[in-house]
């Protein structure tokens, strides 16, 4: 869907993005991670030409982005940023309607789309539509920011730390919403984030930036187990890695026949949760139940510990 070819951005003598090439599949979520100042935002903004590359090019669906005037290009690409950037002089509904209006949709279609998106993000259109941004909570504003970015059925959604300012609970909810909505709409997402949990849990692939260079681009499991550089390893935290790895998969395929007592664990729970439950209750094994509550078998502490080891893959 997005092809980034040898993209470079230089400010005077500062090479901020250095010869980055990247292929992003249609419908994928790619998380871009890296230290502060490593060029993540710049890379993202070169995709919708908010920043013009010094050299290299970007293709979207095979078409060079330079073939279209920047503002027209951006109407086909969603863009959501930290601090949301909602227009304070416009209502929530008008904010969401921004790009459809620019594209000249008729009124009824815009209205229907706004209602649909607000409902999708859990904001009752009749109540929130006519409000101004300052009458919403931070989390609600953030959701409106994402809804606005999605309004005109973009093929691509660019997000720059969209949930950075939210508290953990609201953030988790926003991430779950994003995942569900992305699956539903099939939009390709490029997400810049500092939150490694967000990257590993949300993304299909993770791109790691280090001083302007793309040092690794792989699945979360690959990045966790075979980091390309010391920096990539450090970023996920040596003491956190096994747990992050566990959280990527459910306990379903670790289930084995047997008997165990105590509180059962759902088969679709992630392995990190299962490990925590076992450790907390001081058991060596726990029963696993399916969606209907039926017994599927047990999961053991030993299997979980084994699964947390990098060499297991």
């Amino acid at each position: 869907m997005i092809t980034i070819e040898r993209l470079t951005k230089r400010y005077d003598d500062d090479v901020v993005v250095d010869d980055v090439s990247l292929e992003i599949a249609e419908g994928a979520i790619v998380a871009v991670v890296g230290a502060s100042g490593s060029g993540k935002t710049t890379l993202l903004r070169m995709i919708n030409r908010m920043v013009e590359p010094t050299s290299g090019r970007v293709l979207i669906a095979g078409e060079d982005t330079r073939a279209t005037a920047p503002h027209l290009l951006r109407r086909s690409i969603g863009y959501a940023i930290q601090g949301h950037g909602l227009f304070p002089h416009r209502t929530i509904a008008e904010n969401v309607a921004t790009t459809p209006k620019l594209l000249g949709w008729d009124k009824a279609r815009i209205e229907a789309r706004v209602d649909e998106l607000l409902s999708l993000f859990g904001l009752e259109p009749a109540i929130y539509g006519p409000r101004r941004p300052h009458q919403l909570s931070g989390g609600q504003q953030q959701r409106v920011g994402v809804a606005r970015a999605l309004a005109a059925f973009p093929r691509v959604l660019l997000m720059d730390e969209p949930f950075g300012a939210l508290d953990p609970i609201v953030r988790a909810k926003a991430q779950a919403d994003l995942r569900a909505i992305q699956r539903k709409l099939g939009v390709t997402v490029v997400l810049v984030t500092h939150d490694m949990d967000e990257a590993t849990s949300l993304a299909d692939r993770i791109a790691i930036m280090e001083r302007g260079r793309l040092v690794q681009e792989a699945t979360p499991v690959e990045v966790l187990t075979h980091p390309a550089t010391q920096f990539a390893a450090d970023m996920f935290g040596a003491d956190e890695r096994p747990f992050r790895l566990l959280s990527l998969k459910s306990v379903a395929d670790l289930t084995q026949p047997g008997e165990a007592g105590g509180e059962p664990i759902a088969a679709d729970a992630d392995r990190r949760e299962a490990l925590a439950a076992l450790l907390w209750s001081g058991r060596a094994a726990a029963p696993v139940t399916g969606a209907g509550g039926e017994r599927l078998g047990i999961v053991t502490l030993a299997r979980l510990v084994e699964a947390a080891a990098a060499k297991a893959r």
Partner: protein
Amino acid sequence: MKAAAWTLRLLTLALLAVYLIRPETFAAALAPLAPAGAPAVYTQSSVLELAAIHVAIAAVATVLATAAALALAVFATRPAGSAFLPLFRSVANAGQTFPPVAVLAIAVPSVGFGEAPTLIALTLYGVLPVFENALSGIEGVSPAVLDAARGAGLSPRQELLEVELPLALPAILSGVRLSAVIALSTATIGSTVAARTLGEVVIAGLATNNLAYIVQGAAAIAALTVLISDALGALERWAARRAGRG
């Protein structure tokens, strides 16, 4: 509080209207201030006409100044004009150090006596407040909002007209109000170069030592200024609410 303010406003308006239409109404009240034997009410020319010219000069000057200031501020905040911003700033700051009387007096030789030099002085003097306010209004638009606007696909023109200017409007209007108040007060001084404004009444009072003239001229101008500034203030608050800050 609100009712009191409205009563005060309406009372001021009513008194001003009565004075402008039938100044003789106040003859008795003003008589003690006039020197013995001198008239208490200014009748050399129609005060209504003077007030109309006064307001017209101030209005035209404010409109011209606003147009010029907005053009400069918009130009200086576009990429093409950003190099000029520091220069405009220092010119505007230096312009503030020119006293209105001096601008008025210097304009006389080139355009003659009357309303013309007054209009020039008022216009030049009115540019600064609008320029400074428009600048801080436009620069005050949050970078996140601009970024989002660009990201949503607004063209530079749409960004200016649909985001920057509406959000800067309260600040711009506050500059316009300042500019209008300065214009109304400086128009008074215009009478020293023979512009026909309400200042004529005050100057006549100074010339003939007639305190009654000074009082009525001053009161009429003050009432006019307060009412106009009040109305523009209401407009400003409306704009601020619309800009999502209310």
